[in-house]
């Protein structure tokens, strides 16, 4: 290891992966356990609700398919943003980033709409085990999307400075992309296990 360091962004590392990238990967491992526990709770209480409404009474699969599609598209725009960052296309990067953020907000909008729709059909936190486990699980997922929106928003604002995101911009975008894709994958799991599987 040199006694002098050049760009602070790129230190030599034993595994060859940047520290911050490795941090995000391991953090996501812990997030797997977090969502795993919430999904497990949902599955344990599946079929154990004492009163209605039950999933079949409230789920609107076409609607949720649409919001899922929106989130999937946002992952695609995120891929574009990361590509643009690595290959130094600042305009494309900002546009893709903005699209990702907007699509994320649309997804959140769908979530809020869905929560209110279910609420009007008599499903809330205290109604039954379905309500409790469903809202806590999807609520925390929504919080993660929200944090992701703030995260990407900060990246967008940062990219509008004179130096943009700096020489490590590609790395930063890739790390943000990891987080965003993870949140999307968790949603795919939730959509499949909670919504689609009878």
């Amino acid at each position: 290891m040199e006694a002098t360091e050049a760009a602070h962004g790129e230190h030599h590392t034993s595994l060859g992966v940047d520290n911050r990238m490795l941090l995000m990967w391991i953090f996501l491992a812990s997030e797997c356990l977090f969502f795993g526990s919430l999904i497990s709770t949902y599955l344990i209480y599946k079929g154990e609700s004492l009163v209605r409404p039950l999933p079949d009474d409230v789920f609107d699969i076409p609607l949720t398919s649409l919001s899922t599609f929106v989130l999937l598209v946002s992952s695609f725009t995120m891929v574009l943003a990361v590509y643009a960052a690595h290959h130094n296309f600042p305009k494309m990067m900002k546009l893709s980033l903005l699209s990702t953020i907007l699509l994320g907000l649309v997804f959140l909008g769908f979530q809020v709409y869905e929560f209110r729709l279910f609420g009007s059909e008599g499903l809330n936190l205290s109604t039954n085990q379905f309500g409790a486990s469903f809202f806590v699980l999807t609520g925390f997922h929504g919080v993660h999307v929200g944090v992701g929106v703030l995260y990407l928003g900060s990246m967008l604002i940062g990219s509008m400075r004179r130096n943009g995101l700096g020489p490590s911009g590609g790395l930063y975008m890739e790390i943000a992309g990891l987080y965003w894709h993870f949140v999307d994958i968790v949603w795919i799991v939730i959509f499949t296990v909670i919504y689609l599987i009878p």
Partner: protein
Amino acid sequence: MATATGTLPQVQEETTIWTWLTTVDHKKIGTMYGISGFAFFLLAGLEALIIRTQLAVPNGAVVDADRYNQLFTMHALTMIFLGIMPLGAAFFNYFLPLMIGARDVAFPRLNALSYWVFLGGALLLTSSFIFGGAPDGGWFAYAPLSDEEFSPGAGLDFYAIGLLILGTSSLMASLNFAVTVFNMRAPGMSMMRLPVFIWMMLVVNFLLILSLPVITVALVQLVFDRNFTTNFFTPAEGGDPILWQHLFWVFAHPEVYVLILPSMGIVSEVLPVFSRKPLFGYAAIVFAGVAIGVLGFAVWSHHMFTTGLGTVPQIVFTASTMAIAVPTGIKIFNWMGTLYGGSIHFNTAMYFAVSFIALFTIGGISGVMHASPPVDSQQQDTYFIVAHIHYVLFGGAIVGIFSGLYYWFPKMTGRFLDERLGKIHFWLMFIGMNITFFPMHFLGLSGMPRRIYTYDADLGWETWNMVATIGSYMLALGIIVFLVNFFWTMRKEPTATDNPWDAPTLEWATSSPPPEHDFDVIPEVRDRDPLWYDRDHGIEKVEPPSEMHIHLPPPSYFPLLIGLGVLLLGVGVLSHLALTALGVVIVIYSIWGWALEPTE
């Protein structure tokens, strides 16, 4: 101030409070963890003394039932989360970079943040005593007792919010240390050349990374049940109290390995140094540690053997629990093999390390006994379990920590803790500990349940309870002797050289205490015991060049600020949500500032 020039890096820095509040230096952060951890250890010890005084005689009147239930709950919470874990973190923090030949951890500001968030959570939890009562449902807080119907006060809310904050701190530290171990090793420091202490620390970090999310979910569900009308654990509405137990123990069983593995690592460092021969069976000890970590996730329901699990789950968890005894035994035999054929120098650190082997064995064996569900059906929830716990946690974890303290004291402070006082401390603690906790085996076999604030006179429990109480006072005396030793030693002049013990690992390749930048020259590692290899092969220490440009990360107040924000967040949830909002604002502002501040 970010550069150090010249060939004499040993500069006595002038430190102020502000230095400490804004430090990102792992050694200072480790010191803060150590001092806080020890202070809370003393507090938890005080709680234990009150408990023992109450139980010294039947129908004791030292404290009433409610206060007693708060005391035993807080004794466990404080010892585990505010005592042993921070003391482990103190050593990890101080020595991880030094032992792998790095200058700091991967994320110095995150490191500081972990400490400040810990301190906030610790103060929040402890303050519960004066704000409506400490949690009193046991550290395990079983539902439905933890529900607001049966625990209407604020205690269990302090419990949930406090542990959520503490969990966040531990998670951040674990992520930081894991990345550091993987990514910041000196040239030649392959994974299988890492000191055992570092390996154990790595396992601990993964245990935390994977288990903390589970308790987080459980605590969130508890908060929702108590405050937001859900019924996750309420039987009348379709909830299941056993779900809490599963989620809790999936976290809490790995947690007990989090508590013991650091001390196992310390002992693995100390024994070879004072036996003057290498650790016996390094690879086996490392793999056994990893195996304990992995298997540690497969045994949790042995805490639930009496809950009516059913035949098959009982059999499965018996098998996995028995299995975990094997790697544990391997480590013990390897430590004994390290002593064999050695030339053992018995200073205080070595006394503690050798007694660790004996005391932990006793605790481990009683554990294997109640790994069998039928035997457990008599021992569960009795003082037999209390005996087991304290042999592994006091005779294991605490004794190991003291061994590390006496071993590494010269490295951290330049001074040697007095050996005569050290031996008095050791004997008072060793004898006191056995007098306190061994009789608890008898009490458990005699039918005395746990967590009872008093007991009747004619059940045959008086004698051993009185003996245990006397032992606890002896223990306390030993700790006082240590404190006297500590303060007296700190007033002496530093005299320690780089490597007074002729130890093999890299932390002894720099001054005592190390300069702020740890190493003048990052060492080249040629062997698992680097300094012994260099000594035996006549390899000289590399002299630093006449001009060095070492950049160290500058101090930052954002970790402190975020810590304050998180504390406000928690306090607000327990009192006025306006404080939570303020906390969130501070956190968001500070994250922004942190991201933008220069790190050169």
